């Protein structure tokens, strides 16, 4: 039974333009008309009236209003009535949304339908195959610190290679599509595989796996006066990040959209840490923390996700559930003390921590476009976490294996619970006369409970910590576009926070000592964050943007209890701190100049200044009895300026050059960094990036790219001669050629050169590397 679109019966066919009297071809005659006037709304994704014109099968099936085309009968085909503009309120393209078809174009479509509405042999069936694969081989030679090279360049030395990238997409017709893509690079242990099958009217199934490997450097710190090469851990420190997932979704029209997915994430391996251990010079007994440290990580996460969404009475309702089981085992090994001249460490601490939790979280979100000028949304998040853990801290003495190991900290019964409720409501209004308004409120309540029973040198030590936090956020944003070619905006965000915290730790050893700890603190916080700015483009060749921002964060502490079992008051940290305020001012300016088609330049300047202030009560240092003054204290200030310039240049159509230059100048000075014990933190970072591509012939491209960065964060104050700051220069250059051998076969060959020099590490981190990359890419069809 073939139905007709509503309204079609009233059409006077004699008013239709006649069909052209020639044989029409879809690709040559019809497709350009449909592409210009129809596909935008009746394409593959979210077609209007559920009418798809891309495939013959779907086009003949029609949409919500019934059949659109009747092969051989263009005069009775509603599609022709609409494109001819004969049906009021159903003119196609709709009034104001496209240029009406000419009588000639309507005639072509009529002829096409009269001749059977053929899409041609290869078009309109939705069947296609696209396959692209790139195989690559790399050889890299590194002299110097290979671990630093791996960590910084994300590449391993020696041979690496495999499938750099592949993509296979298969259109199966009827809105069905299969897609597979990924990479498989051995040597770098870099893998990715994504598979999906989708039916536009039913749903999808997808699965995948990916993994990549960051490496760590193995070098500790350098202390110049000792004139010794920095200590190194040796070996390869790598930590694999991976995840695998499988999921399915139901996306049929008119039904709730639902999906379920299982995801498995893991991290496994070794990484270096910055918990550098102390090394002492045996005569002067001066020490510096320069001995490198590392951590073993074995982390597993299982996540189940359930998502559902549907429109109910004009309200989009979406619910998402996440159930997460997390388990980790961490083992951190730090040299506590090493005496120069020794072959082994004096003492070594190994902290092993196990932890796992289950966390369930559910988010409900409602959205409704009430009017063209009013959009409302609201949501509620609930999450609950239940965890447990163990910690064991052991100190051993490698210089005398008969000693120890001694357990310095042990807790087998750590329990953690966290519960959170978050509500939010938001509105987006306008624009009216160019004025748009966004407003939102969010309330976030979190309660956390932690308990443990430690064993400190054989003595039981129960401890606990409770945290109750309530935070309320308000957001107001205005955007004004009435001024020609200009956007003015202003935003304000406020937060009020109330925190109640109770912490205690007791050691039942019969003695009063400083390990005992009891603190009950109420804290209130306020945040005010303002930003105003503009974007302006008065000419096609110029655009300007600028903004200023102030962020003021203030915290007040009320110390209800601050005692310990030993009777010494104020053992809790910071004990006498009454408040803290951090004020940050920012400004940003950007100019984009596009003076000619072949030149575009972006210049950006950012400046940021932060003041840190603390308020304290009077106090007495516990051991010396020296008095601290109370009052407001300027704790520190920071400044940062960043200048950035980016240019793209295409002086000839065969040459493309781009470059980026950036200078970042930053400084942090705290009230303690007065030069006698701690020096201010200050330095510059310079970055230069450049790339060029030149089409040397019809089938050959030449490419070059260069990256340079340099940092100067040296510290020169004599008493802290430990260069925790860094001075380095890093270069990376690649040059290569790409050649298309056949229409679908491309090969490229590149040479890469890398150099890194870090004088602050006394050269221990320096490296030079040379590499050759070869890649072959094949496309089908």
């Amino acid at each position, binding site marked *: 039974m073939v139905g007709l679109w509503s309204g079609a019966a009233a059409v006077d066919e004699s008013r239709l333009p006649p069909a052209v009297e020639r044989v029409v071809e879809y690709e040559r005659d019809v497709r350009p008309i449909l*592409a210009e006037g129809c596909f*935008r709304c*009746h*394409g593959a*994704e979210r077609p209007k009236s559920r009418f798809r014109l891309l495939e013959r099968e779907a086009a003949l099936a029609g949409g919500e209003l019934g059949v659109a085309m009747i092969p051989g009968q263009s005069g009775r085909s509603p599609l022709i009535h609409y494109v001819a503009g004969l049906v009021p309120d159903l003119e196609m393209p709709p009034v104001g949304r496209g240029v009406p078809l000419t009588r000639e174009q309507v005639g072509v479509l009529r002829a096409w339908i009269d001749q059977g509405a053929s899409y041609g042999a290869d078009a309109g069936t939705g069947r296609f195959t696209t396959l692209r694969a790139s195989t690559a081989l790399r050889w890299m030679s590194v002299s110097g610190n290979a671990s630093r090279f791996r960590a*910084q360049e*994300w590449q391993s030395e020696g041979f690496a290679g495999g499938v750099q990238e592949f993509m296979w997409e298969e259109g199966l017709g009827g809105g069905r599509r299969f897609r597979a893509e990924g990479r498989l690079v051995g040597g770098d242990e870099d893998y990715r595989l994504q598979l999906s099958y989708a039916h536009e009217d039913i749903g999808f199934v997808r699965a995948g796996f990916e993994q990549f490997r*960051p490496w760590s450097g193995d070098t500790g710190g350098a202390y110049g006066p000792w004139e010794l090469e920095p200590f190194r851990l040796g070996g390869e420190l790598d930590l694999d990040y991976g995840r695998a997932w499988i999921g399915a979704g139901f996306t049929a029209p008119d039904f709730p959209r639902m999906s379920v997915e299982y995801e498995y994430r893991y991290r496994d391996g070794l990484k*270096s840490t*910055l918990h*550098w251990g*102390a090394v002492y010079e045996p005569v002067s007994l001066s*020490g510096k923390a320069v001995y490198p440290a590392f951590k073993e990580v074995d982390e597993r996460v299982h996540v189940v996700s359930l998502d559902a969404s549907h429109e109910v009475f004009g309200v989009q309702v979406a619910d*998402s559930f996440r159930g997460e089981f997390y388990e980790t085992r961490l083992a951190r090994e730090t040299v506590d003390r090493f005496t120069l001249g020794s072959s082994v460490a004096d003492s070594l601490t190994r902290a092993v921590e196990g*932890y796992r939790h289950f966390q369930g979280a559910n988010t409900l979100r409602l*959205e409704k476009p009430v009017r063209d000028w009013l*959009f409302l*949304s609201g949501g509620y998040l609930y999450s609950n976490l239940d965890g447990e853990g163990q910690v064991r801290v052991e100190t051993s003495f490698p210089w005398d294996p008969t000693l120890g190991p001694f357990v310095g*900290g042990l807790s087998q019964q*750590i329990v953690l619970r966290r519960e959170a409720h978050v509500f939010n409501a938001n509105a*987006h209004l306008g624009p009216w006369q160019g004025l748009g308004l*966004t407003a939102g409120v*969010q309330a*976030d309540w979190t309660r956390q409970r*932690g308990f*443990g029973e430690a064993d400190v040198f054989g003595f039981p030590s129960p401890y606990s910590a409770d945290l109750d936090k309530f935070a309320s956020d308000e*957001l107001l944003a205005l955007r004004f576009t009435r001024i020609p*070619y200009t*956007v003015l905006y202003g935003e304000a965000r406020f937060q009020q926070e109330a925190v109640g915290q109770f912490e205690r730790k007791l050691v039942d050893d019969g003695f009063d000592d*400083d390990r005992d700890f009891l603190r009950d603190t109420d804290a209130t916080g306020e945040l005010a964050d303002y930003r105003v700015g503009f974007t302006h*483009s008065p000419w096609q060749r110029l655009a300007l943007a600028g903004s200023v921002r102030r962020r003021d964060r203030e915290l007040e502490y009320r110390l209800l209890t601050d005692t310990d079992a030993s009777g010494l008051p104020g*053992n809790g*940290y*910071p004990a006498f701190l009454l408040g803290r305020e951090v004020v940050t001012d920012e400004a940003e300016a*950007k100019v984009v100049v596009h003076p000619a088609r072949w030149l575009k330049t*972006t210049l950006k300047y950012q400046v940021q200044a932060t003041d*840190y202030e603390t308020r304290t009560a009077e*106090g007495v*240092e516990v051991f*010396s009895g*020296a008095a*601290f003054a109370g009052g407001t204290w300027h*704790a520190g200030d920071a400044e940062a300026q960043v200048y950035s310039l980016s240019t793209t240049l295409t002086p000839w*159509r*065969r*040459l*493309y050059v781009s470059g980026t230059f950036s200078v*970042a100048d930053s400084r942090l000075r*705290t009230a*303690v960094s007065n030069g*006698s*014990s*701690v020096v201010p933190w200050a330095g510059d970072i310079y*970055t230069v990036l450049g790339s060029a591509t030149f089409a040397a012939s019809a089938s050959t491209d030449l490419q070059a790219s260069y990256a340079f*960065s340099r940092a100067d*964060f040296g510290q020169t104050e004599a008493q802290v001669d*430990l260069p*925790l700051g*860094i001075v*380095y220069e890093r270069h990376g250059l690649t040059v290569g050629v790409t050649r298309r051998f056949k229409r679908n076969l491309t090969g490229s060959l590149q040479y890469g050169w890398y150099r890194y020099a870090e004088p602050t590490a006394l050269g221990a981190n320096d490296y030079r590397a040379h590499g050759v990359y070869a890649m072959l890419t094949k496309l089908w069809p």
Partner: protein
Amino acid sequence: MLHHARSRQALAGWFAVSLLAVGVWALTSCGTVARTVSVPLTIPGASYVGNQACAECHRNLTQVFGASPHGRYHREEGLRMAGQTGCESCHGPGSLHAQAGGGRERLILNPGKDAGACLECHVETHAELRLPHRHPVLEGKLSCVECHDPHGQDLFKAHGGLAMARVNEGCASCHREQARPFVFEHEALREGCTVCHQAHGSVHPALLVQRDVNLCLKCHAQPQAGVGLVNVGKMGFHTDFVRLGTCWTAGCHTAVHGSNLHPKMLY
């Protein structure tokens, strides 16, 4: 010596002549190769169609886009400089995509897969992503949208809609080890990971903002009981420790994100 100097001059001369010849060849041969190199953010044959055309199909995104941080640069009818505002400044000119009836990644750029579009404007971020310690975005192992929602109200949010992000939520999806609850938490985490870490890239390991005790002292600096002394809390004697290195080295406050054992984060 003179002979060597002349040899060097001759070599330099040959090099200059060769360079000139290559340049002349490159310029004069332009007319013989009817091909252009691909410039980022262009789609061959496509032109800009304006935000309204995108809204016809992508209304779920465009209706809240004005409220997003990117909405600061957004005009419905655009600015004079094409591609500086709105959808096509990130997704490239959309005429061919619209004519083809849409389709994921069909004739349109997806910044979620290639950060190039983002870095056109975020120039300073491009530089940070090339520093020695960085998130591997340019290496293709991460993408900008894994941390940022470019269409949402807050760039650091994990969920859609207009809701505001919860602090650290974006980082926690990968860094669970650091963002999990602790019995004794480090209060700095309530202020956000970026108090200590520079998210895109840093010259320091662990993407630290500062690498020495100043990182801690900017919040923990307090009145001192004597000139040249570094006292923290009421228990002083930190002077020698800070000269040793940082607060978290030498077996001291090693549990920087929080501790399940010690209130002062010694483990």
